[in-house]
């Protein structure tokens, strides 16, 4: 079965990367141009509009503006609702940019978590190192950008605790992730420090199953599903915008809920 999350027409990411510097410099002009194009484009709603460059730039400029608004709306002390363990969906819903049959399991014994960027201690972590840290359990709703949602129960190391352990600069802007399935992702520091953001090792009390990110995946209650990378292999603390897989294809970066 084909993942419903996969776009019908995957745009060429290289084009976006090429235009990124231009897009960042064009915010105001882009807005004006976009405003002028709004009227024209709505007439073409039914046509096969291949996203004219100016429209795309204007929409991305507004999306980046919205990222800023979302950061302002984010309350670091606001907790997502939690649910009784009886409501946990077993197994959880699988979603990736590829089919569940294409999942490549990761060996917990040889797995290492690299740490880099603005941190004091860049020593790599083993699974047992992470298991030795204090664990937290939460039962929270997973909300996908597509619209579906389910209740899941996650156990793991609060990312805040981990960042403090490695001596991360907590005033840095971004925490970026690399994964075994080549799904780069990143979140803002405020969300990384939220008490319901975990480096999850377990689901519903059991060790994570292969399709859901064994041995470790990010699980945060304050972001949409696509901001929860599975099979995390590296964490970087940085001030340089790291982007992410879906973000490079046009999805909003902040994606806070």
């Amino acid at each position, binding site marked *: 079965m084909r993942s419903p999350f996969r776009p019908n027409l995957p745009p060429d990411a290289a084009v976006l990367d090429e235009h990124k510097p231009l897009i960042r410099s064009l915010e105001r002009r882009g807005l004006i141009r976009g405003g002028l194009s709004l009227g024209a484009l*709505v007439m073409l709603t039914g046509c*096969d509009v291949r996203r004219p460059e100016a429209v795309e730039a204007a929409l991305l400029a507004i999306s980046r503006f919205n990222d800023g608004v979302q950061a302002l709306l984010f309350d670091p002390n606001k907790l997502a609702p939690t649910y009784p363990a009886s409501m946990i969906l077993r197994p959880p819903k699988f979603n990736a940019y590829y089919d569940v049959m294409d999942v490549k399991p990761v060996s917990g014994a040889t797995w290492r978590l690299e740490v880099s960027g603005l941190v004091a201690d860049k020593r790599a972590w083993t699974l047992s190192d992470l298991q030795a840290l204090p664990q937290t359990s939460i039962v929270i709703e997973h909300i996908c950008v597509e619209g579906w949602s389910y209740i899941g129960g996650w156990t793991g190391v609060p990312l805040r605790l981990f960042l403090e352990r490695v001596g991360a600069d907590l005033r840095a802007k971004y925490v970026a992730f690399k994964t075994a399935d080549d799904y780069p992702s990143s979140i803002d520091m405020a969300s990384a420090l939220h008490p319901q953001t975990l480096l999850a090792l377990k689901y519903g009390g059991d060790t994570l199953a292969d399709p859901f990110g064994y041995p470790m995946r990010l699980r945060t209650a304050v972001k949409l599903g696509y901001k929860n990378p599975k099979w995390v292999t590296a964490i970087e603390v940085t001030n340089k915008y790291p982007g992410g897989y879906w973000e490079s294809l046009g999805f909003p970066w902040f994606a806070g809920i």
Partner: protein
Amino acid sequence: MGRVKTEAPGVETPSLRKRRRLHPWPLRIMHWVNAVVMLIMIASGWGIYDDDVIIRGFHFGSFWRLGDWAAWSLNWHFAGMWFLVLNGLAYLAYGCASGRFREKLLPIRPSEVVQTVVDTLHLRIAHPDITVYNAVQKLLYIIVILAGISQVITGIVIWKPVQLSGLVALLGGFQTARVLHFAGMAVIVGFLIVHVALALLVPKTLSAMIAGGPRLKPSGHTKQGRAA
């Protein structure tokens, strides 16, 4: 006012120039901005909907979707929302401050609604005075204004379900809020079909929304308007 002068130079007497048109220019601007933005929100919303349908088997074909896949439908939706909300707030403020809502939309009497429906069923749908809304028109305009407000609320709720978790709980959960957002769209689209069909059947209402329409009596009311 300069605009009025250029439309009919030399004809206006000072007393006539003071009279408001049926649809003053701020209202016309807001109407057409809203028309464009609503189409953007509806068509991009259909693009978002299609990624995970609420009604099994019910999809919107690519002809009806704005954005060639979900990411761009989302970007259209989250760009359009600003124009919808700012224009909508301006419209509500204008409607309240100018007295237009009170004047045009109130009061509504159930007996008049019934009478209008009966008249319509008997094909008595003459609409000689477009400055006065009949009871069904008033009801439909109020419903669509409330639907618009409801769309903004349910939209913000499904955008920020954790930050607004209290409101989500009040609405019965994220999925219920999402269905309500979809239902609000259906109400607005239903209104849109009737609204456009009637505007085309009575073309002077359409030209009034472009050029402003007839000038009102000095009081700002027509005789029937006061009586209604």
